[in-house]
């Protein structure tokens, strides 16, 4: 039995639909990465530049696990277990880098984590071919669906659905964590470590916890990404990806959950749209990286605290409704 039997069979997507499914899937992945980085750089106010490293660890962890146990167990449990394994690998990575580094502050933490992210990529790139594929990458067997010409569309739809369920779960978990005693302790440490310590909060433990949880989510994003792509190469997890994730967090507003998802959509859509333009599209195509940068600069000028600031989309919506109601009553 495959999962395909649960889906409306043979969804006709067409090239446009395929493109959209790809965009939406990437939005889900980058939302997961953004949400988890937001936990570190937004709520906990640390400055990590190594998130792409945990993403890569998750992707390669899942790929390795899937290759090892492919054929030894049914597809769906293998998929799930590879995701759990990936989260574990990334979480252990987060713990190992977090324990020594989280005593560093600001710029020093940024440099240490940046180094870590690059070490992960370079280590994979130079790994033996039979272990992690080296610079040629790893092929990930399809395990949850047989992907043929006929079911390619279904597979994409399924992965988009999985992606967004994970985004929703992560957003829910983060929101609840922030409202819990431990979560508020994390916010307190972010604002004033000394004062938090005086109240009985262990600042290092609070920071390491946030860091490890965020790494695990990045690892999960990596696992799903690896299963979707079917082949992963170390170069995909380069520093530009880190910049992209960081931009999503900043654009969305440090500490805003819905802002983060919205920013991921905006960034990925613009990027994919510009990249899709035909090669002879002239100015737009030739200058797409410049345009991409220009959009970011404009956003930072007009919305320096992010699209929503630290607020949620529901807050923005409530304010707008209040404004409209006021206008109507005035008229």
């Amino acid at each position, binding site marked *: 039995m495959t999962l395909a039997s649960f889906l409306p069979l043979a969804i006709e997507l067409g090239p446009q639909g395929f493109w959209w499914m790809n965009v939406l899937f990437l939005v889900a992945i980058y939302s997961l990465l953004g949400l988890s980085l937001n936990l570190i750089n937004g709520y906990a106010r640390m400055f990590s530049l190594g998130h792409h490293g945990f993403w890569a660890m998750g992707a390669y962890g899942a790929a390795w696990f899937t290759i090892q146990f492919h054929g030894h167990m049914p597809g769906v449990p293998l998929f799930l277990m590879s995701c759990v394994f990936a989260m574990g690998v990334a979480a252990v990575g987060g713990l190992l880098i977090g324990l020594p580094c989280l005593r560093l502050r600001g710029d020093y933490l940024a440099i240490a984590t940046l180094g870590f992210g690059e070490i992960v990529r370079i280590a994979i790139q130079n790994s033996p071919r039979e272990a992690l594929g080296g610079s040629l990458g790893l092929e990930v067997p399809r395990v949850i669906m047989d992907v043929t010409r006929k079911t390619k569309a279904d597979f994409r739809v399924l992965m988009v659905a999985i992606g967004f369920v994970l985004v929703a779960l992560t957003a829910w978990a983060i929101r609840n964590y922030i409202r819990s005693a431990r979560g508020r302790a994390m916010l307190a440490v972010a604002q*004033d470590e000394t004062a938090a310590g005086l109240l*009985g909060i262990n600042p290092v433990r609070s920071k390491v916890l946030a860091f490890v949880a965020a790494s695990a989510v990045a690892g999960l994003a990596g696992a799903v990404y690896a299963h979707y792509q079917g082949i992963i190469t170390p170069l995909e997890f380069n520093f530009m990806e880190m910049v992209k994730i960081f931009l999503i967090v900043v654009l969305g507003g440090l500490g805003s959950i819905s802002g983060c998802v919205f920013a991921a959509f905006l960034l990925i859509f613009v990027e994919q749209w510009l990249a899709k333009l035909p090669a002879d599209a002239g100015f737009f195509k030739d200058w797409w990286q410049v345009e991409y940068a220009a959009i970011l600069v404009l956003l930072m000028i007009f919305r320096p605290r992010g699209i929503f600031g630290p607020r949620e989309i529901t807050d923005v919506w409530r304010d707008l409704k209040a404004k409209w109601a006021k206008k109507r009553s005035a008229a």
Partner: protein
Amino acid sequence: MLVLEGVDVYYGNIKALHGLSIKVDEGEIVTLIGSNGAGKTTTLRTISGLMSPRAGRITFQGREIGGERAERIVAQGIAHSPEGRRIFTDLTVRENLDMGAYLIHDKSAAKERLERVYTLFPRLKERASQSGGTLSGGEQQMLAIGRAMMSRPKLLLLDEPSLGIAPILVQEIFREIEQIRREDGTTILLVEQNAHMALKLADRGYVIETGRIVHEDEAGALLDDPKVREAYLG
């Protein structure tokens, strides 16, 4: 209750406390007065674990606590309302107070503490849902003391509660400090530049100069001491 014996504390290579010895008995209000930079704040920071002594002993209820981390020390019943108040400006008043009860896991006990703090400082109850940053200086000071009181401390360390606050509010805060001692039975070590007010409130006092205790006596006697009057009471 609290005894410091020959405590040396350094900032890097600079010696801030020179063999400092003080003691605070249960139920007392003891004040440490002295001018700027004399080592008052450093003393409190050393007791609450923000700094470690390089020499000497600090015992609290017969147990050595010198050099332990701050979060361990607060668990033993010493709460510190720090210099500059250090409230969480982005959190609401209520959330600030809840953070003070971080180590109290029993919800009803935490609620009881909250009610107690609201009784002590009714203004905090009125402002419960406001963010800490919107409070006036005096209210922030009340919040800092209230937050420290949330952990039900046996010993409360207060660092300059009168600093930068309107005189009328200072009166109010000092009345509340007295009330905390009387009604909660909390022992208080108070650091102040406003020596006159501090000595009027306290039972005993120490005068600290450049990291050394130069004088100690009953608070009333210090108030009448000509040398103290000249140096600190203007």
